[in-house]
């Protein structure tokens, strides 16, 4: 289904708007299929994220775009309208920021940043001027003469960023650039990267395994698994409308309840789980079919509590009787497990006034949960194909 979406996009938008087109890329390492017939496009100026766990093929795809990996098979790869299948990495108009920085240890910060210009034969004065501009962009102008080993991890990654930006590439590729940084620094760098993206209007293709990073930064996310695209769309799509159980799980949905579809009506599906019927918007990849296995995805923060004797007087809600289970203190909130007759449900409680020992039921709005296919396997489409 992902490929047909791409095809639809292509016919809808004009080609000039697309800075990157990858069509039917397959890559094998020996017997292992790292990338299985994947097609992607990126719009000019887009912040596109390739999301997935390790081994999902996201880095392989990025390296194919960079030219550092030659795909086993590919129909077409074009950067800014120009077919680059036969062009080596050194002559492609894109640069990479690596997770491990890959700064040249025998060069100063300035020499590292200037390297892309040096190999292009640009004279010293101009190199220096542009390097200073690039370092100003990442707020490291005062580090021009420093040695690489004198820098902190965050500074090194910013130097790598300046080095990649100096040649003014059409696309900036970022391969888990924040992976080696600690938590606090990572959050700061996310903001910095977003600012930079806005300021430069450059196309960013960003590889990460962190759904939180992807949600914060992207215009569009492509979620990958075992070399195939599972779902693609804006962050809100992946967050609120997961195309399969796998996507919901990957995007951090805490409660995944399994049942069978009982009825479908106007995009709303009702699922029978034990003695209960739960309704919500259908977000699966294909059409919902009566009798098929489905998964109800509810985030813990959407689950509300009804104390004894307090009526839920709202239409369109799902209700489950429950008793209180284990509580985990998280500082800002509590993670409360609630036991129901269809298994435990996690709720996130922000209100300290709630007495969790005096509960009658838990409930959530139908509009705040997604019903999706119970698929946990490779591609979203593979179940329908079979």
């Amino acid at each position, binding site marked *: 289904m992902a490929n047909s979406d791409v095809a639809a996009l292509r016919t809808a938008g004009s080609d000039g708007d697309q800075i990157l087109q990858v069509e039917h890329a397959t890559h094998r390492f020996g017997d292992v299929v790292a990338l299985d017939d994947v097609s992607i496009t990126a719009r000019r100026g887009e912040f596109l994220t390739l999301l997935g766990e390790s081994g999902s093929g996201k880095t392989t795809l990025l390296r194919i775009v960079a030219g550092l990996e030659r795909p086993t098979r590919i129909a077409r790869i074009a950067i800014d309208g120009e077919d680059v299948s036969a062009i080596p990495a050194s002559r492609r108009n894109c640069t990479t920021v690596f997770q491990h920085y*890959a700064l040249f240890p025998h060069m100063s910060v300035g020499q590292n940043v200037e390297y892309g210009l040096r*190999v292009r034969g640009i004279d010293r004065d101009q190199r220096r001027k542009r390097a200073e501009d690039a370092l100003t962009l990442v707020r490291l102008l005062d580090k021009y003469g420093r040695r690489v080993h004198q820098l902190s991890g965050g500074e090194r990654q910013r130097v790598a960023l300046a080095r990649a930006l100096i040649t003014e590439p059409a696309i900036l590729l970022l391969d888990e650039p924040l992976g080696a940084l600690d938590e606090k620094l990572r959050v700061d760098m996310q903001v910095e990267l977003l600012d930079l993206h806005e300021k430069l209007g450059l196309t960013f293709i960003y590889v990460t395994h962190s759904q939180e990073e992807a949600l914060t930064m992207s215009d569009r996310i492509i979620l990958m698994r075992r070399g195939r695209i599972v779902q693609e769309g804006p962050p809100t799509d992946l967050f609120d409308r997961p195309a399969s159980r796998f996507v919901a799980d990957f995007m951090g949905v805490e409660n995944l309840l399994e049942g069978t579809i009982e009825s479908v009506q106007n995009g709303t599906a009702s699922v029978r789980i034990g003695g209960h019927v739960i309704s919500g918007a259908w977000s699966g990849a294909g059409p919902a079919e009566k009798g098929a296995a489905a998964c109800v995805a509810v985030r813990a923060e959407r689950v509300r509590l009804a104390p004894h004797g307090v009526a839920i007087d709202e239409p369109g809600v799902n209700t489950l009787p429950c008793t209180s289970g284990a509580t985990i203190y998280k500082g800002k909130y509590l993670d409360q497990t609630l036991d129901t007759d269809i298994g435990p449900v996690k709720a996130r409680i922000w209100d300290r006034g709630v007495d969790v020992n005096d509960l009658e039921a838990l409930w959530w709005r139908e509009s705040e949960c997604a019903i999706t296919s119970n698929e946990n396997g490779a591609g979203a489409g593979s179940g329908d194909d079979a």
Partner: protein
Amino acid sequence: MTMTVPASETITYAQVRPPFWRRFMDGLPRGTGLFFGYGVLFILYLPIVWLMILSISGEPLTGIPGDWTLTWYEDVIYADIAQRDGEAYGSNFRVGDPLLLSIGLAFATSAACVIGALIVGPVLPRVKRRGPLLIGFLMPLMVPGIVAGVGLFMWYRLVINVKMGVWSLALAHFVWAFPFALLAMLVVASRFDTRLMEAAEDLGASRWQRFWQIEVPILKPGIFAAGFFGFLLSFNELPFSIFMRAGQDTLPLYLWIQSGAHNTTVPLIYAMSTLVTIVSIGLTFLAIKLAFGGGKDGKQ
């Protein structure tokens, strides 16, 4: 502190009489190891220092230093020059040609070692089954020089028909020195982060630029070490040269022959050896300084 007293009573092996080597080791005074180490250094350097002292003595063949003079050094230098000019001289010790040949061979070997090590060194750590390959490359280190010398002689002379003389000497010196040079290069090359080459390629560097601007500077300590080993091993080489000479004398070969032949030239050998030693030590320090002194950027 008090814990040790009951412990020694309860542990039974303390009562057993220890074997003689343990009693011997336990009986050695503190610092014995260090003393022994200094002893080895002393045995190594004393003859060299003694030779240097005798090289400036008036009667070196008596083995008694004294009557200080630089006459032997004068002889080393002037004997060759005088005979070259067709003049008769007191001694027929002519070290000029062997010295030039040895220096020439050393430079050639050094260059060949650097080039060879630079080709093989960076590739070897990335080869999949490199164990046997590595052993293959380093095996010549373990073959006795005389054995390899005879083997090479037979091979060059009878099978591939290399012109014996300077060429066979150069080839033999390279065969001898290359494993050492490669080993020195491997120490650096095995730590080389090949992802840097990818980063350079990604930034637009051509193959040559990646080699010249990234690989060579980072491998610089290995390059210096390989060149240095190549030079010194060739310059000091004797066993291979014996078989490969075909009328050509290298400096060690000449000194070796002279020391066995004429009593009168022995004092000149002392002087020449002293000169060679001093220059060698000087070169060694220079090489170490070049390779590692200014190499702060090579380390991270």
